[in-house]
């Protein structure tokens, strides 16, 4: 009994460290890939570690009220909490301690938890009183209304197909049938991938941050340590989303190398699509998500209900 608590704590620390390192590393690799596609040399792949260390060592003397101080803290709380409910590896090897707090129905819990960070950020950015932040927050929340619909439809389709609402249950279903959910339920996978484009906020869906028009959107009044917290939380959240996708659509991963290969290939989908795209306007982006992705999601649900 006493021993299992220590293993849980060890698993918690190992998971957070892994998510931080991999998330920040992927951020740097994305900058490198972007640079190579634009025919540049680009920063070294460890550039984001320098950025985060530098930002943590800056002083921060901005005060707009207590919600502004709480916003980044809520964001990182949401990221770490979401991370705790994701099984990193599918538990067939000897790395069982990467399964942290999974319980029955955790996929529905995650649906709410993954939004919580953005809402905390929105409250924090709203209090700074910067007009760029206010516009960025309203754009971000509008876009969230857009991509949440195909995302939920995709999840409903696969949850009905596997008749479980837990992520470990979905992994077990895929392992038992020796297949991946992306082949079992391809329409749901397509809807999920299209929603993922919006979730990662790369172009053409970088509407809330819009560097050329909104300064940097919600973050424009946050500097120094707050920006570092937001970068950390964003890196962890990117890792959470990627591992969640690998778990529910691609059968999970049995070891760390497989996990890195799968998540990196999956991450290249929004990144490569983003590099060659300009930016949508807000209403174009929402109209996009309520068009084909939602239709494909509905078809995916109907496919599961009537055909299988």
């Amino acid at each position, binding site marked *: 009994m006493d021993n299992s608590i220590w293993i849980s704590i060890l698993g918690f620390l190992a998971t957070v460290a892994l998510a931080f390192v991999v998330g920040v590393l992927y951020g740097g690799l994305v900058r490198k890939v972007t640079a190579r596609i*634009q025919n540049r040399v*680009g*920063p070294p792949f460890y*550039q984001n570690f*320098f950025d985060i*260390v530098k930002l943590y060592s800056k002083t*921060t003397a901005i005060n707009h009220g207590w919600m502004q101080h709480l916003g980044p803290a809520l964001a990182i709380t949401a990221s770490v909490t979401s991370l705790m409910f994701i099984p990193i590896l599918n538990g067939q090897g000897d790395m069982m301690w990467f399964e942290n707090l999974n319980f029955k129905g955790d996929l529905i819990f995650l649906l709410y938890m993954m939004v919580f960070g953005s809402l905390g950020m929105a409250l924090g950015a709203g209090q700074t009183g910067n007009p760029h932040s206010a516009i960025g927050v309203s754009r971000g929340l509008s876009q969230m209304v857009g991509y949440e619909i195909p995302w939920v439809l995709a999840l409903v389709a696969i949850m009905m197909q596997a008749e479980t609402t837990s992520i470990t249950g979905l992994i077990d279903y895929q392992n038992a049938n020796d297949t991946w959910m992306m082949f079992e339920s391809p329409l749901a996978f397509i809807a999920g991938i299209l929603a993922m484009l919006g979730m990662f906020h790369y172009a053409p869906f970088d509407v809330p941050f819009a560097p050329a028009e909104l300064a940097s959107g919600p973050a424009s*009044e946050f500097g120094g340590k707050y920006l570092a917290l937001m970068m950390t939380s964003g890196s962890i959240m990117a890792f959470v989303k990627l591992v969640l996708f690998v778990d529910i659509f691609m059968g999970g991963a049995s070891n760390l190398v497989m996990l890195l290969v799968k998540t990196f290939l999956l991450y290249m989908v929004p990144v490569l699509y983003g590099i060659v795209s300009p930016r949508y306007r807000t209403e174009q982006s929402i109209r996009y998500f309520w068009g084909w992705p939602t239709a494909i999601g509905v078809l995916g649900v109907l496919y599961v209900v009537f055909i299988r």
Partner: protein
Amino acid sequence: MPNDKKSQKIVDIIQNAARKHSLFVLAYGTGCGAIEIPPTMTSRYDAERFGIRGMATPRQADVLLVTGYLATKTLKRVIRAYEQMQDPKYVIGFGSCTINGGMYWDSYNTIKLLDKYIPVDVYINGCMPRPEAVIEGFIELQGLIKDGKANGATKYKENIDWYRANQKKVIKNWNMPDYNW
């Protein structure tokens, strides 16, 4: 203090290395110098190789790049942007206009020496300095940061009365908020 030479402990060395390799630039594009910034940042000269990256707001920036002459009206905005930046912060004066007024040396409404109003760490001379010279200036600044010598912000805080007097001498309608950084 991070830039105090006597107490360069191991933490300071790590922090200075990180600061050196990660410079977020607020390019304050006044005058003709602004046109040299896009080629410096984009594919041709690619300043991102050195960790130099553009930032859109003063809150997130480390380096204030003042690119050219400053009318007294613009100087007010530059001071305001500079005081909103978070420590440690650096200023690069870009082009002859920030050193001696350049071709505006006898103009009635431009300042001549930027260093009298905000502390400049590195000057890049030329009219215009090409992107190679700009990158050279950034590398000079990186060297200063590594040695802990780029302490313009501390100088500004210590001599705030002198700087304020100079600023108020040229800016007639001084109605700016006070910052308690």
